């Protein structure tokens, strides 16, 4: 049975890498704007549809699909920020945080309904870069696409780390995350960096969805699943912490697979929720979140 254990652990880690990629954008945006974006999953869903369009309909190579997904995700995220969120967080209303949740929640419902209307409910499939099942030493079984997706996810998160810790954009982001008022005082243009954060957030979500597509399917309601996973990850990891997001993504992947295999196969999604509730009750700021009030 060690084979099953090792296999599950590995599957969980690989899956977790993608969860982390789905979630980093959400975490980034929250850190900078204190906005919990319920439409994040739809950035991913529309990104994967863009990939299907480019690869399936236009017949371009698979890697262009990844780019298309990232671009589409980024564009939609940008539009969401400008059209839906900015009017709210620039307004003088109370409980902006809660209100942006309602706005993005309704936006998400709208995008799902609109996508269902325009694309139909058909499940679509995207070819992967490495469409092959591997049997490593006849012990570990994996698809090549899963490895590609994981490697790409880790590379993208590494890139984000580089941006956050080594570039001016990243320094501004960090300043905004730690002290929004102070950052504004020293002349950091919140709008500009919020836009950049949304662009990055959408691009990561779209890319993650396009990497997941060869393993799963593309369909209008797929964003809901992506959103739920991303939420669980950012809450466990701590809203606004990229390091925490990576760790929590891997943790969620492993917990889901392990509990599914060793406890009950019928409750896969419930394990993530249970983990999230436990973390929120015992450490409301998340495993890597800073103490003190986040909002």
């Amino acid at each position: 049975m060690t084979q099953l254990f090792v296999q599950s652990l590995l599957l969980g880690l690989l899956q977790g890498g993608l969860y982390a990629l789905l979630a980093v954008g959400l975490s980034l945006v929250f850190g900078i704007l204190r906005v919990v974006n319920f439409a994040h999953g739809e950035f991913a869903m529309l990104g994967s549809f863009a990939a299907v369009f480019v690869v399936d309909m236009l017949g371009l190579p698979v890697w262009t699909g990844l780019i298309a997904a990232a671009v589409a995700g980024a564009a939609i995220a940008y539009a969401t920020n400008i059209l839906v969120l900015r009017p709210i967080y620039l307004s003088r209303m109370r409980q902006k945080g809660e209100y942006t949740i309602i706005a993005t929640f309704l936006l998400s419902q709208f995008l799902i309904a609109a996508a269902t209307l325009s694309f139909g409910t058909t499940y679509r499939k995207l070819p992967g870069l490495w469409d092959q099942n591997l049997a490593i030493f006849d012990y570990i079984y994996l698809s090549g696409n899963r490895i590609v997706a994981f490697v790409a996810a880790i590379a993208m998160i590494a890139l984000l780390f580089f941006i956050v810790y080594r570039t001016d954009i990243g320094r501004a982001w960090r300043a905004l995350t730690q002290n929004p008022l102070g950052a504004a005082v020293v002349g950091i243009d919140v709008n500009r960096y919020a836009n950049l954060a949304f662009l990055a957030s959408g691009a990561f979500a779209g890319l993650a969805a396009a990497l997941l597509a060869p393993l799963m399917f593309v369909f209008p309601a797929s964003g809901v699943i992506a959103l739920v996973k991303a939420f669980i990850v950012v809450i466990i990891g701590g809203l606004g912490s990229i390091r925490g997001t990576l760790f929590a993504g891997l943790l969620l992947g492993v917990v889901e697979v392990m509990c599914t295999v060793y406890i009950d196969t019928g409750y896969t999604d419930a394990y993530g929720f249970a983990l999230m509730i436990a973390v929120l009750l015992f450490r409301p700021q998340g495993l890597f979140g800073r103490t003190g009030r986040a909002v």
Partner: protein
Amino acid sequence: MINNIGKISRRALLASMTAAGLLLAGSGSAYAAEDITLGLVSPLSEPGDARSGDAIKKTADLWVKLINGAGGIGGRQVKLAVFDDQGKVEVGASAMERAITEANASAILGIWSSSVALAQMEVAKGYNVPLMAFYSWSDDITAKNYPQVFRIGPYNSQIAAQMVPFVKDRGYKKVVVLAEDTAYGLGFAKAFEEAVKAAPDVTVEVVQFQAQTQDLTAVMSKVAASKPDAVIVQTVFSATNLSIKQGREVGLKADIITGWDWPLLPDFWSTVGEAGVGVVYPTFSDPSLNITATGKTFVDAYKAAYGHEPAIFQYYLWDNFNAVKAAIEKSGSSEPAKLVETLPGVTFEGTIGPVFFRNEAGTVNFHQWDKFAMFFKKLNKVGDGEKEAELVQVAK
């Protein structure tokens, strides 16, 4: 807001009065030429199985077109009142009631999911209107012996019983039933566990999973690790494809016996690819089936209208419609109560043979047509369709 409430009720009042007026006018003026209305309550949108709903609607539209083209039933034109049940039990029940009370449907057809059908049966009973099932497999649908409920199509315990000899003949000792957590998945799993008691040397394990899942790798890893001889997959198309693809991905070596005609859907090969080779699927359809003249008319018209062949469940649906037609012709009335009385005794030429209902009260074979054969077919290479698939066993 007080005014608004007033408006609503006034509007409702007006609407109901107008409706009543129209009905009176309709019944008074031209009774002989009055149209026959049939209610079609099907899953036309998510979360229902909208794909199958679409196929149902196409079949129904075609039938109505052909019948009306040939002069209707007894000179009366037929029209459909279409309602969406969204795959939800409560929506299905209220849609059916609307079909009866608003559209005055003579009979209700097109139901798909067993759970919706079970809720609709109460409505059928309450209003005494025939409810025609065709591909809803729950035993309870006919086992409850409601006089208004009829089924031309298979049911779980019979399917499961026919599956057992196949499992025995293939020499499977350890079988995993992978069932989604719905009426479709768990209903079959239960029936199979029951039926397999007839073969004591076969062990069965039921592995349940969330129907809306997008990732079955963990579940399939567990299944693979228990090293079964065969996995019977009982779920709808998306999870069917996932379980095959992801099962092979995690090293599942067992034979996969998958749900009904899902492998014939156009997206099967494009989604599962190589992993689909060797999959066995049971079906009620085979080129060897003796298609009657009625059946040929249906298939030809369907191909002409939609450019592809109908699936087997659409044959049964066609027979459902013809059963209602036969009952109207026999009783000379489209009154629902009359049809309830007449339907048990109708016989007519169905698409794949003569149709008549078994009427054994107290059993599942009540208002039930059961003359179907089950074929087990194997897909031997990528792209195999119904014609290429190898027939490995027939259960009658």
